[in-house]
C-alpha cells in the first residue's frame, strides 16, 4: 500500500470528488422537466397523432386511394369508399387503429395528396380502446387541433419528407437511394423561396 493510497483513503478524496459534482449540481438549473406542468414543444418531424388535412371548403383532402393502407406495415388503416351522388368517389370511413400503429410515417410518405399527416400531438392516452380508434371525424378534429396551434405550414416546415423528387424509377419509393435524391436542406431552401 503506497503513501498516495493511504492519503486518498484517509481524506476520502474520491468521495469528495464525487460530492463536488453533486454540490455543483445543486446550484445549476434542473434538467428534469416537470411534466405535465412543463411541456416540451416537439421538434419538427415529430411523429405524433395522425390527422386528416382539410380542403379549403372544410372537407377532408383524402380521395380514398388507399395507398396509406397499402403501405402500412401494421395494417391499421381502413378506408371505405363508395360512389357518391355525382358518381364521384366518396370516402365514407377513414379509420386508423392508433393502438396498432407503429409510427413509421410511411402513410404520410405514401399519400399523393398530403391528406394524411402526423401531428405533434402526443397526449392522447385513454382508458378505452374505442377512444383511440380514430374515425374520420376524429382525425379531422386532430388536424384542427394541430393547425390551430401551429400557424406555420405543415409540409416543409413541420414535416420533412425524405425526398420529393420522384422522377425516374431509381428514385421511386426506394429509400436506399436517398443519396441521389435532393438533400433535406435543399428542399427547405426551395420551400423558403
Amino acid at each position, binding site marked *: 500500500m503506497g503513501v498516495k493510497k493511504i492519503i486518498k483513503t484517509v481524506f476520502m478524496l474520491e468521495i469528495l470528488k464525487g460530492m463536488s459534482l453533486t454540490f455543483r449540481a445543486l446550484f445549476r438549473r434542473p434538467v428534469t422537466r416537470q411534466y405535465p406542468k412543463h411541456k416540451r414543444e416537439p421538434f419538427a418531424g415529430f411523429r405524433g397523432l395522425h390527422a386528416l388535412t382539410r380542403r379549403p371548403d372544410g372537407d377532408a383532402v383524402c*380521395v*380514398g*386511394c*388507399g*395507398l396509406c*393502407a*397499402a403501405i402500412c406495415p401494421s395494417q391499421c388503416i381502413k*378506408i371505405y*369508399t*363508395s*360512389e*357518391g351522388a355525382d*358518381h*364521384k*368517389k*366518396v370516402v365514407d370511413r377513414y379509420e386508423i387503429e392508433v393502438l396498432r400503429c407503429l409510427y413509421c410515417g410511411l402513410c404520410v410518405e405514401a399519400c*399523393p*395528396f398530403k391528406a394524411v399527416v402526423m401531428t405533434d400531438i402526443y397526449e392522447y392516452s385513454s382508458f378505452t380502446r374505442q377512444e383511440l380508434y380514430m374515425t374520420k371525424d376524429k382525425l379531422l378534429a386532430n388536424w384542427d387541433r394541430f393547425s390551430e396551434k401551429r400557424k406555420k405550414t405543415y409540409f416543409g416546415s413541420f414535416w420533412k419528407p425524405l425526398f420529393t423528387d*420522384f*422522377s*425516374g*424509377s*431509381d428514385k*421511386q419509393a426506394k429509400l436506399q437511394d436517398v443519396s441521389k435524391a435532393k438533400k433535406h436542406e435543399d428542399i427547405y431552401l426551395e420551400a423558403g423561396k
Partner: protein
Amino acid sequence: MKMKEEKIINFMINDMPVKAKEGTSVLRAALDNGIYIPHFCYDKRLEVYGGCRLCLVDIKGGRKLVTSCTTAVQEGMEVYTETPKVISARKTVLELLLVHHPLDCPVCDKAGECQLQDLAFKYGASEGRFSAQRKKDPERLDAPVVQRNTNRCILCGKCVKVCYEHQGVGAIELIGRGFKTKVSPAFEETLNCEFCGQCIDACPVGALNSSYYRHVSRAWYLKDHDMPCPYCGCGCITTLSMRDGKIVRAKGVEGKGQNDGNLCSRGRYGFDFISSPQRLTKPLMRKDSLYSNNIVSSEGSTCNDNPFIETSWDEALDFIAKKMSQIASEHGHEKIGAIGSQRCTTEDNFMLQKFIKESIGSSNVDSAALFGYEKASRSFESVFGQRLRHISWDAPLSADFMLVVESDITSLLPVWGLKFLESKRKGSRLVVADAKKTKLSRHSSSWLRITPGSGTALINGMINVLIREELYNKSAAEDVAGFIELRSSLKEFTPDVAAKASGVTADEIVNLAREYASAKERIIAITACASENTKSSSLFVAAANMAMLMGDGPESLQVPAEHSNTLSMIASGVQAGVNGKNAYEMLYQSNTLRALYIVGEDPLVMMPDTTAVENNLKSLDFLVVQDIFMTDTAKMADVVLPAAAWAEKEGHFISATGNVQKLEKICSSPGEAKPDWEVFSMLIKKMDSRAGLMSFSDVSMEAQLKASSFMARLERSKGRPGFIPVELTIAEEPDSQYPFRLVTSTILQHSGSFSMLSKNLDAIASEPYIQINSADASRLSINPDAFIEISSRRGSAVAKAVVSDEVPEGTLFAPVHFSSARINALTYAAVDGRVPLAAVKITKI
C-alpha cells in the same frame, strides 16, 4: 378430327432450355414456362394482333427486336427477354402510352392490379419526354353494369376482339381515327349487349369497369376465393373477391377451372343475390299453427288473416316433425313427398332424401329435373340402354360437324356455348335447327328455321334419308333391336313429309342428313331444361336413334345438365324411385299427397301450368318450403324455413361435365338461416331421437360416397340398346281461337326465379317481356313496349311486347323467370312424348 402429330421444338429463353409445340408463339411458350414477357394486346383466346409492341424480345442473330406474340418458335432459337435494348424499347413504348393516360390512379378502381401501372413502375417510365393533351371524354355510365372511361384506354383492342371474336357479339368497336380513337359501341350509343363482362376482365387498365364495383374497394384490400358458380351446369370457377366478409366482385381468371377465365353475365354479375335484403332470416310459421302448437287456440280463419310470424328453429322443426308424423300415421307414409333442388349441394339433397326415405318412410322424392334433364336421360336410356353421361367440355372442339336442335346453348350454358363458336371459327360445321334466332344460329354455318317443337320431325326425316340412301352404319345398326321397326315406321316419313311438319324444305333435310353422315366426328347437342317447352322426350329418343344408326357412341349426343348441381342431385338420390311418385304425380295429380316438403324450388314460377300446381298445393294439408327468399310457393306454405345460400355453406357441386367441385363457406348467412343439410339432420333427430345429429364431415362423406358410386354405376351400366320409333305429337296446336304458339325458355341473364334477387342482373334484365314477330305486331297493330295480355286455356299473363324478328311469325317467346308475369300459368305440363307447346291468344290492353 384427329390432331396431327405435333413436332416439339427445343429452344432457349434467357439461356434456359424450353420445349414447345411447333407453331407456338414465343410469348406463349415463355408464359407457359413461367417467364413473364409484358404484353397488353395478347390473349390466348384471340388471334394474335401484335399491336401493343410491348412483348418485344431480342433474338440472337436477329437484326431488330421482334414482337414475341407474332413470332413462332424455331429450333435452336435463343431468345432474351430483358436485355438493355429490350428494356429501353419497352420503356419508350410505355412512355408513349403514358402520354395520353391520365394519372387518376387514386380514384381508378383498377389501381393495384393495373398492368400499365405495374409495368410503368417496373420500367420506370413515369416521367415522359413527350407532352400531349390528355383526353377529356366524359365517362359513359349510362349502360347497366359496364362502365367505360375512354380516357384511360390504351387502345390495345383486347376488349373489342374478345367481344367480337371470342364472344361472338361485336358490341364495341374502336371508333374514330388517330388521337380521337376510342372504344365505343357504334355511333357512341349506349352499350346494349349481352353484358357478359368479358371485356372488363380483358381490359389491362381501368377503361372498362363494373358499375357495382365502382369506388367500392381497392385491390389490396381484397381476398380472392375460387368458387364454382351457382348458376348453370358449366360449373365455371369464379374468383370472388371478398372484403370484410362480403363478396364485392367476381371475375374470371385465366387458367382456373375449365372455363379458363371465361364467365357469362350470370357468373360475373349474379353473385350478389346472397346479399339481397329479401333473404329469409328466421323460420316463419302461420299465426294459427303457432298458437295451436302452444296453448292458445284460435278461431278458424282464412289465409289472409293468418300471417306468417317469426319463430325459433326449435319450434318450427318441432311443429314439422309433429305434423309429419301425424299425417304419416293418419294417411300413410306415401302421402308425404318432397321436391329437391338442383342448386343445393350434394349434401343437402342427400340429407333431404335421407329424411324422407328413412325418417318418414316415403319414397316420393323428385325434382324439377323430371321436366328437364331426367326426361332426356330416361329417353336416352331407353334407346342406348344406359343413362345419359356427363357432357365433355371439349366435345364441340373435337367435332367437325355439330347439330344443335332447338337449343339456345349460349343462353343456357353460355360458357360451354362459346366452345361451339370456337369450333365453328376453327372450321367445323355448325348447323342449328331452331325456330328462334339465337346467338348460335347467327354464327351457324347453316340455320334451319324449323317450326317450334318440330325437332323430332326434322330428325325423323333425316333418319329416313339416312336409311333410304344407305348412309348409315350398317354393321353397327342392323343388329340392334328395333331396327326393322324403325325402318318401317319411318318409311313413309320422306323428306317431303318431314319438311311439311318442320317448316323447312325437303332439300335442306336431305342435305343436312348427307352432311351429317359424311362428317368424321359429329355431335348432336340438345339442352334439357325444365322451362323449355319445345322439346319432349321424343326428340331425345329420335336424336339417340339417329346417333345409334350412325354407329356413334353415347358421347355423340351431348345433353348438358341444366343447373349447377343437377347431376349430383340425381346421384345423391333425389329422383323418383320405382315405388315413389315423381314430381308430375306429386304436383299435378290431385289427392296424391297430404304433405309436401319443397327445398330450393319455386314450382309456382318455374314449373309448367302453375294453375294446376297452385290448386294442388292448396289442397295439401301441410306444406313446408325451405328456401333462401320468400318465393311465390313459400307464400302458400305453412312453414317457411330460411336456408343458407351458395357461398354460405360448405358442400359439393357436380357440374354438367362431371367435375366434383368443392364449395367453401366464405360468407355468413343472414339472420338464423341454416344450411339445408343441417336442417334435415336436426329434423331427423326430432323424428327419431336415437338418430345421431351428424356432423358435416360425416354427412359429406356419406353423400359423396353415394353420389360417386352412382356416377361410377353410370359409367359401367350397359343395358341392351334398341331403336324406338317415335313421332312428333304436339300437345296443343294453334287454332282459330288461340292462334299463336308460345315458346318459353330461360334467358341468358337469369336462372330460375332466385336470380331476380341479384341487383346487377336486375339492372340488365328487370322486366318480363313477350317477343313477337314484326309481321304479327303490325297485323295486330301492337306497338313496341306496349303491354299485351297473352292467355291460353289455362291462364294468362301481362307483359311488355318486344317486337323482334328473333321469333318467327305465329310464335311468341317469353322468359319464365319473372313472377310479376307468370308465363308458366299458360304453359302445358306434359311428361309423355308430346311437345308441351301451348296455344295462346293476344289481347291488347
